[in-house]
């Protein structure tokens, strides 16, 4: 048995075994205390926090003193999908496994690992039939379980970050940092994996109906083989929990113009079912339901857009520009589908996406068309195969109008920026999220690139944000948490109705009252047009 020696399990905050019996806040706290100090839990539990401060100090001091110290970020160890119903009898266990990464792992080990997960889930189910365990903490790694469809289980195993030290006798000593990973962040990442799969492939069940286990396995293999390489577990943070959408700030008139543009396009390209409009990688309009848009947005902003460098930014003689069809009337081009409309052999293949899977289950072709910084997604019924003629028509109708619109938006945006005059680097670092419309704002994160999301603050601060968020999830009521972090940092978390705001302040010798005042000021300037209790 290769099971880790030191192993504990934990359940989702609201579904712990004890919680099902007593439920209240107080008892929850008790249960958590009994879980032991090594378990991530606790609100206001000072000893643990002190411990982290020490760690943070070590991390920040790493550059100076300990040259022999090496850090390894969290990494994906394995990722598998199984269905216990597919191999219920002994000897048939292999049939349960639908996908396993890394594939090179020996068959018996695969079976064992799947079996273990199955056992854990089964075991915890006895305490909480509706919500079994979500994650398993061990010294070396952490496992996350997700059952996105009935009996279909997805498991992600993440190795804890490692610090490798040089001991006195020169041997490397490996230290696993068991408390570093946040359950909510990685559970969200796992859920996102499913959502992304579903967006491009539909549900597991649908694949089963269409072509049985064989087809499902093929689809999983094809999708996850590539997708897992883009996970970048080391840079996951609070924003992965939110899975929010950044909206482009815009004045009413320009917004109405866009609205009018979309309506006209949908009218003249009558096969278009839904449309989404983005500017600068920020959403302005979506005809899709929120949850579908959320994952599509993720795909667009982290995968599709970054892959296409702006050719319009490239010089006239640059090779990228040369590839573009000689279109001088407008800057429109397809990000999905045909590259060159003048090529009669051009393939009009668009990615297929699946939306409203709980309800109407619609399959659509995703046409992404961009002019300068404005991108429009046209979604048409998958039963209609867009022809080259259609693409040309779309190009000739949408291209010129979108080009004009894009420069209108740009102009208006600059006017607004000048008028508000607040576009100096904001002195506050904050993250805002509204559960109601999934609106997300962050001055902490730099521009997302396909590989990493860069943050401008120390990872430890990001972790505190994650902690505060976990605290917020436990209660329904509005609350506010102020944390004094290392050095001069203060972290403030506010939750008002469905909104969450996290502010990171760095002020020398500030006290609680001053910090509170600062946050009030921020709310007054940045959020004065919403009902946000202070």
């Amino acid at each position, binding site marked *: 048995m290769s099971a880790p020696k030191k192993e504990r399990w934990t359940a989702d905050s609201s579904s712990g075994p004890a919680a099902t019996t007593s439920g209240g806040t107080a008892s929850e706290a008790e249960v958590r205390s009994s879980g032991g100090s090594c378990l991530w839990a606790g609100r206001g539990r000072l000893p643990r926090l002190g411990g982290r*401060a020490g760690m943070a100090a070590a991390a920040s001091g790493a550059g100076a003193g300990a040259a022999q110290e090496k850090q390894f970020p969290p990494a994906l160890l394995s990722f598998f999908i199984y269905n216990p119903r597919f191999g219920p009898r002994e000897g048939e266990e292999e049939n349960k496994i639908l996908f396993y990464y890394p594939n090179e792992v020996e068959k018996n080990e695969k079976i064992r690992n799947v079996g273990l997960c199955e056992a854990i889930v089964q075991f915890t189910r006895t305490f909480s039939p509706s919500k079994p365990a979500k994650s398993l903490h061990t010294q070396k790694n952490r496992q996350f379980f997700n059952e996105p469809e009935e009996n279909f289980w997805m498991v992600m195993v993440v190795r804890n970050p490692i610090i490798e030290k040089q001991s006195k006798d020169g041997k490397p000593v490996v230290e696993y940092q068991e408390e570093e990973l946040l359950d909510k962040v990685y559970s969200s990442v796992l859920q996102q994996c499913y959502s992304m799969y579903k967006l491009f492939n539909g549900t597991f069940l649908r694949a089963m109906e269409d072509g049985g286990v064989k087809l499902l396995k093929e689809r999983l293999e094809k999708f996850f083989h590539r997708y897992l390489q883009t996970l970048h577990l080391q840079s996951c943070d609070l924003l992965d929990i939110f899975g929010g959408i950044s909206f482009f700030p815009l004045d009413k008139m320009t917004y109405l113009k866009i609205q009018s543009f979309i309506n006209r396009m949908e009218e003249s390209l009558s096969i278009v079912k839904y449309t989404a409009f983005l500017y600068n990688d920020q959403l302005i309009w979506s005809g899709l339901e929120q949850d579908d848009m959320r994952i599509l947005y993720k795909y667009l902003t982290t995968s599709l857009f970054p892959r296409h460098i702006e050719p319009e930014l490239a010089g006239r003689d640059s090779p990228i520009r040369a590839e573009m069809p000689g279109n001088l009337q407008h800057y429109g081009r397809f990000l999905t589908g045909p590259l060159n409309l003048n090529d009669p052999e051009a393939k009009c293949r668009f990615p297929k996406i699946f939306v409203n899977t709980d309800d109407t289950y619609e399959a659509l072709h995703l046409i992404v068309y961009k002019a300068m910084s404005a991108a429009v997604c046209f979604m048409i019924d998958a039963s209609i195969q867009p022809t080259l003629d259609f693409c040309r028509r779309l190009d000739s109708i949408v291209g010129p109008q979108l080009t004009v619109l894009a420069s209108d938006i740009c102009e208006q945006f600059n006017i607004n920026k000048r008028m508000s005059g607040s576009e100096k680097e904001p002195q506050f670092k904050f993250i805002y999220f509204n559960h109601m419309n999934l609106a997300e704002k962050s001055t902490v994160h730099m521009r997302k690139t396909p590989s990493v999301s860069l943050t401008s603050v120390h990872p430890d601060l990001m972790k505190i944000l994650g902690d505060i968020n976990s605290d917020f999830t436990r209660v329904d009521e*509005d*609350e506010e948490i102020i944390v004094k972090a*290392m050095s001069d940092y203060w972290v403030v978390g506010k939750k008002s*109705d469905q909104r969450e705001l996290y502010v990171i302040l760095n002020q020398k010798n500030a006290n*609680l009252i001053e910090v509170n005042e600062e946050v009030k000021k921020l709310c007054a300037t940045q959020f004065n047009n919403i009902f946000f209790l202070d």
Partner: protein
Amino acid sequence: MGEEDYYLELCERPVHFEKANPVNCVFFDEANKQVFAVRSGGATGVVVKGPDDRNPISFRMEDKGEVKCIKFSLENKILAVQRTSKTVDFSNFIPDSSQLEYTQECKTKNANILGFCWTSSTEIVFITDQGIEFYQVLPEKRNLKLLKSQNINVNWYMYCPEGSVILLSTTVLGNVLQPFYFRAGTMSKLPKFEIELPAAPKSTKLSLSERDIAMATIYGQLYVLFLRHHSRTSNSAGAEVVLYHLPREGACKKMHILKLNRTGKFALNVVDNLVVVHHQDTETSVIFDIRLRGEFDGSVTLHHPVLPARSIQPYQIPAAGPAPVTSQSPVPCKLYSSSWIVFQPDIIISASQGYLWNLQVKLQPIVNLLPDKGRLMDFLLQRKECKMVILSVCSQMLTESDRATLPVIATVFDKLNQEYKKYLDAEQNYTMAVEAGQSRSGPLLRRPVRTQAVVDQSDMYTHVLSVFTEKKETPHKFVIAVLMEYIRSLNQFQITVQHYLHELVIRTLVQHSLFSTLHQFLQYHVLSDSKPLACLLLSLESFYPPAHQLSLDMLKRLSTANDEIVEVLLSKHQVLAALRFIRGIGGHDNISARKFLDAAKQTEDHMLFYTIFRFFEQRNQRLRGNPSFTPGENRAARKLWGSHIQYQEITGGWGGARKLLVWRTLGLVLKEQNFVPARISLSLFTVVRVDSGC
């Protein structure tokens, strides 16, 4: 040709007069629009009928010879009759004054009077072949006083009563026109101008006939209309109408050319600022609108007929006689008859039949004849009776069977709102001017006239949009697109959108459960904030929970709805949130404690109640130096308190201890005032977490 196709018609109630015959002479006065039927030189009676007066004037006068011209002065005060080529006879029609005739001879020797025109109730102009003479009539003295005269060779003359302008044809060819303008006892000579004749005249004969010239006011400006039978350019054979603009000051200028594309006999009318050209050969008419866009060649604008040529709508002459049960069926009237005489602006007279009609334009048939909706709107917006037609066009273009594309709809909305905005601006300027200086501004300030072309939001809502949104067969996507297009157009012209339009949008979205669309509209403030809208959103909460948040946001932005916010929060049992809000805006000194205590009690959360109670005690302490409530509040508060008293010890003590614990860990000393009971209890466990270094 269906009934629906005729866009010109003769008025329903023509002026009927005795038809012209050897004993009955008929005269028409353009100034008063009166028809004179003179029997036997007036001896057997003169009957005068105007278009408006129900009661014709009839009188007798002595037969002193053949009547050449007969006209009343304005307001029917004085009758002038010309019987000879040298003199005009007058008789007063003023009550209690002598009816004896008096005579005026033209001053210029050897001149022949071509005719005369009344320019006011007592001023008259004689036009002779050698000049014009401007007189004032003194009815009491029964004589005339010459005010001014001018010598000039005259071929023929034309009078435009609307513009008070007399046009004289001078020179041998007759194509140099000399206008005179009359106003309040003065006569002013305007710059003369030359009409370009079709081709270089071969002889020295009079080449410009009076029949080919008309004068009319179009869009408030006086124009001389010249019917040129052959175009000067050889490439187009058809006749054309040339419009010369005759301003009060400055030179006359050729402005527009109306291409007729046919030849033959024509007659002109001007109806509702449209130039109507009748063509006798084909018995059809065409109309031109000089405000519609034409081809501008650098100096003049070329226009083509707005609509295909159509006949005037067939007209039935009503059965003669007042007898109600005549078996006689109405007789169809011969249209475009050669006996028709046309006068400006809109008069057609059939002397042989004894009828005077006003020509009218029917707008409804035009709707189907003009497929270009943008041009149709441009056309309709200039018409007098256009509102209902415009609204019907709007309704029609939104019906499923006859649906226009969104860009067309947008164009129509833009045109309507441009006109609407013009009026709003004028109205606003007027109001501002009135406010700025009520007395001294004087007569210059005139309240802007609201024409029918001003189609406002309530018109659109009542007649078009609300009806349209209720139609089941229209796809909701189209409904919303149209509503948004209208709102966009209003915004584009900076017109404040009325809340009922927003409500219509919301209603439509809710009906089709398009909540995420609604959310996005509100997020970008497309639907302007208002209390009614916020309340509407509140009511939607059960269908769409985020509506609650949206509503609160809106109330917050309104900044005049703080009471509503408190009520909303209290109704949600968010007593602390309500209190924090009211404190945040500094209103907690004036609120009724009872409301909050009541709400707190309802939550059955003792800790909460305690917190609220203490808060008010502290407030009382601060305001009045005493924690007790005012007598009014006292009883209620105590009563509520009574049910909670047993918890005081427990919760109070515990909460207090916790307070100290939390704050002490921070090493901060805080006064009671700074200490926020709401915050403490709301996050008993998590007020402050110290991460390190403290």
